[in-house]
Structures are given as structure tokens and as C-alpha cells.
């Protein structure tokens, strides 16, 4: 009986709090049968990709931030696998809270020859040049400037501590060599002006990589023909810098994109990344596997 009463009190308080009826609190706090640990403390709601965004009883103004790490890498860059090791560590710790993208390009990127598959693209070169990067591996974490891979863990943690006012959803379905991508962006509080960018990534590509053997031994360098490359940027879906987007509070924008699978890609290894950014950096990111 006491449990039922406690449950009802909590539910009532949850409904009433967002509507500003805080005058009820003194009454509730007067209930001496509520344990000290169960007393209501107002905590700002934090949800991620919450399907209950339309629930009118909740006022959600922020959500967890998914961090975008753009890893500028290259097959000829012997130290770049060290950056990949850091990404693996971050993915083990944060799973889907981190979206890592391997951008092959720059002077140590390789576009291929008669015997060796190249993963670098003109798009990768364009990003490397536009961000005026000078060495590899180097990362952009939510596009707040170049970060050496030795500092990625610290900087990703800092960025993850921030919330975001944007919620995103993403779906990608493969049908007859055609991917249909649907993305939804919602501003939970205030307006947002920025760019919506969508990219195609591919995992599990076997291609030669210069690296140390083992990776932490700087004095032995090999060309590893069996190196497995993950989260490799293949192309931009909606232009190199995405497209302009304006969001009003709780007024979602849904966009749909068709995309033909390139003959060089393995469809079952593809993912789609979507993110929103402006001059203040990346506000929110999301990644989904392409469903067959």
C-alpha cells in the first residue's frame, strides 16, 4: 500500500513539475512516509533519440550529445594506426555516444595504384585543405579545431559532458542497390541555424597500411597488406558541406535522400552518419547501419 502511494505521488509530481505548480511540493514533502532517498529532486530531463518526444506531458529541453570525431588519416601515415587505437578505446568506453569517421586524404592519403587499393578521396583532400591541417593523424572533435590524437580521449570526454538542444533520428534501408535515408532533426529549445551533413561510411575494408609492428614499437615499420580499415568515409550524400537547415522549437524537419550503392562498396558494411553543425561546431550527430 505504501509503495502504491509513493508511486502515485511520484507520478503526480512528474506531471505537475513541468507546468510550474511547484506549490504542491511543500505538501508532498510533508508526507513523512517517503523515505529520505526517495524524495523528489528536480533533475533536468536528459534523453537521447527519445521516441516519446511527442509526449505532451514532458518538456524536454536538452539531450545527450553524440560526439563526432573526424580522424584525418592516411594509408602512408605510419603513426595513423595509433590514432585508430585511441578510437577503439573510446568506442569501447562510449559506444554510440561517439561517431568516428576515418577521412583518408591529405599528403599521406593514398588514392590507389595498379597493385594497392587506395582509400583517399578528393573529398578527404578537400576537408584536409579546408581545415588547414598540417599533420596526420589529427582529429576534429565536434569541429572545435585540430586535436592531436594523444589528446583525443580528454577532449572527447569534455565534449561529451555537454548536452545538446538538438535531437536527431536516422534510418537507412537498402533495396535493389538503392539506399533510402531518412533523417529527422528536432530543436528541443530555441531555433537552430546550421548545416545538415550526411556521409556514407564503410567498415571492414582490407587495404595496405603503413604501421609499426607492433603498433607501439616506433622502430619497426611495415606495410601491412591485411590491415582492416573501419569507418572509412566514402562520400557525402548531400554535398561536401551539407545543406542549410533552420529548426524551430519542437518543429521537426524530416528529410529523405536516395543513394545508389557504388560498385566499389560492400553494401553490408555501410553506415550512414548525419550531423548538424555551424560556426559553433557540431551540435549533434547520429550514425546508423544500412539495413538490408
Amino acid at each position: 500500500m505504501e509503495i502504491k502511494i509513493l508511486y502515485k505521488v511520484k507520478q503526480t509530481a512528474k506531471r505537475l513539475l513541468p507546468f510550474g505548480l511547484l506549490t504542491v511540493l511543500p505538501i508532498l514533502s510533508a508526507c513523512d512516509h517517503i523515505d529520505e532517498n526517495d524524495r523528489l529532486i528536480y533533475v533536468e530531463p536528459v534523453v537521447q533519440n527519445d521516441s516519446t518526444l511527442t509526449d505532451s506531458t514532458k518538456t524536454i529541453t536538452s539531450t545527450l550529445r553524440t560526439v563526432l570525431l573526424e580522424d584525418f588519416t592516411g594509408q602512408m601515415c605510419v603513426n595513423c594506426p595509433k590514432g585508430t587505437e585511441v578510437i577503439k578505446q573510446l568506442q569501447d568506453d562510449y559506444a554510440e555516444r561517439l561517431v568516428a569517421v576515418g577521412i583518408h586524404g591529405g599528403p599521406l592519403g593514398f588514392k590507389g595504384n595498379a597493385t594497392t587499393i587506395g582509400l583517399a578521396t578528393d573529398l578527404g583532400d578537400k576537408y584536409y585543405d579546408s581545415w588547414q591541417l598540417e599533420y596526420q593523424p589529427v582529429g576534429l572533435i565536434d569541429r572545435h579545431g585540430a586535436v592531436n590524437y594523444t589528446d583525443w580521449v580528454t577532449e572527447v570526454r569534455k565534449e561529451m559532458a555537454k548536452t545538446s538542444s538538438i535531437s536527431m533520428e536516422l534510418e537507412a534501408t537498402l533495396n535493389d542497390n538503392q539506399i533510402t535515408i531518412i533523417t529527422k532533426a528536432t530543436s528541443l529549445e530555441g531555433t537552430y541555424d546550421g548545416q545538415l551533413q550526411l556521409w556514407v561510411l564503410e567498415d571492414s575494408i582490407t587495404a595496405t597500411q603503413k604501421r609499426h609492428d607492433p603498433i607501439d614499437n616506433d622502430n619497426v615499420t611495415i606495410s601491412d597488406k591485411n590491415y582492416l580499415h573501419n569507418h572509412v568515409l566514402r562520400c557525402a550524400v548531400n554535398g561536401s558541406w551539407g545543406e542549410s537547415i533552420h529548426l524551430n522549437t519542437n518543429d521537426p524537419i524530416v528529410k529523405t535522400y536516395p543513394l545508389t550503392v557504388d560498385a566499389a562498396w560492400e553494401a553490408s558494411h555501410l553506415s550512414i552518419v548525419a550531423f548538424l553543425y555551424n560556426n559553433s561546431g557540431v551540435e549533434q550527430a547520429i550514425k546508423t547501419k544500412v539495413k538490408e
Partner: protein
Amino acid sequence: MIATVTAQEAGYGFAFTDKAGNAYSTNTITCNQAEDDGFGIVVPSGLYIKNVDANEGTTVAIQANIIKMDNGKVQLCFPVNCVSYSNTGEQQMTEKTAIEKGEVKNLQTEWLPEAEGACTVIYTATVFSGITKKGTIAITVNYQYGTTGISATTVNHMKPQATFDLSGRRLTIGKRGLSIVRMADGTVRKIVK
């Protein structure tokens, strides 16, 4: 005033060495052993730096000054990042790094020629005690590829030179199925792909 000593002297506790940690006996070395690493022709320097007897708290940074480069680019991966230089002149100094006493660290620097020619780079190691520069040591590397003819390109003996089918007809290298492959060292192998 920062003094500069030749590489053969263990200046300020550091020396340029080979992989085994033997300091070079001159302050100029020639590198002409080209190899194909799968990405193209590379002329490695085989240049290492050793902490001979520098005290704890001492760090070192490397700076490349490209005096001449007929073509291609110079790559340097020290201590944690890789940079590629496609122009002559003095390049930006790398980050500082500490090296344990007795440890040898690869500069991972090489010339990536696009054609026959030569490239000359002066590598300077600046030794720091805290934030104070103690001094520098320098070594000149003369990279050569091709026409200078000091040494022919090192052939990767495991690289396929020609592929044939079972009837002896020449095939495209890398073709799938059972094929006879003649390696660069003249040996012949049966390969199924």
C-alpha cells in the same frame, strides 16, 4: 648563442645513429637504397636518434631543412605525428619528446621520389632542458634515386613479376584462379586465388 656540433659527437646527450644505436662517424650520410613499399618508391633514411647520456627531463625535437629536392616529397613521422614536405626550405620543428637514456628512436623519415633524382635534407635535433634550449646537433642526408646511379633500386624479391596460366599464356598480375607466378628473385610459384 646555441652551439652546433657534428652528429658524430654525442652532443648534449643525444646522437644521430643507425637502427642499432651506432652513432654515424660523419655528419653527412648517403641514402640510395630505394624500395617499393606498395605505395610507390621510397628512399628510407635509416636515421635514428639516441639518448646517449642526457639527464631526465631533457627532451628533443627535430627540424628538417630541405636544401634540394628534384621531385617528390619528404616524410617525417616524429615523435607522434607524420608530416609531409613538398617544398624546399626550413620546415616547422616537430613536437618535443623525451627519450629514455640508452633508447634509440626512429625518425621515420624518407624521401618519396616521383622520378629519378636527388634530395638533400639537413636534420637538426634541438635538445631542451625544460623549456630552455641546450643546443643542437645536425646531420645531412643525401637521398639519391636512379640516375645518380650509386645503387640500383632494391627489388622486393617477394613481388610477383609475371603471371601465367597453366598453358603458359601470360596473364594480368592478380588474376583470380590457379596461376603460375614468377617472383622477382626468379623463383616460380603456383598460386590459387
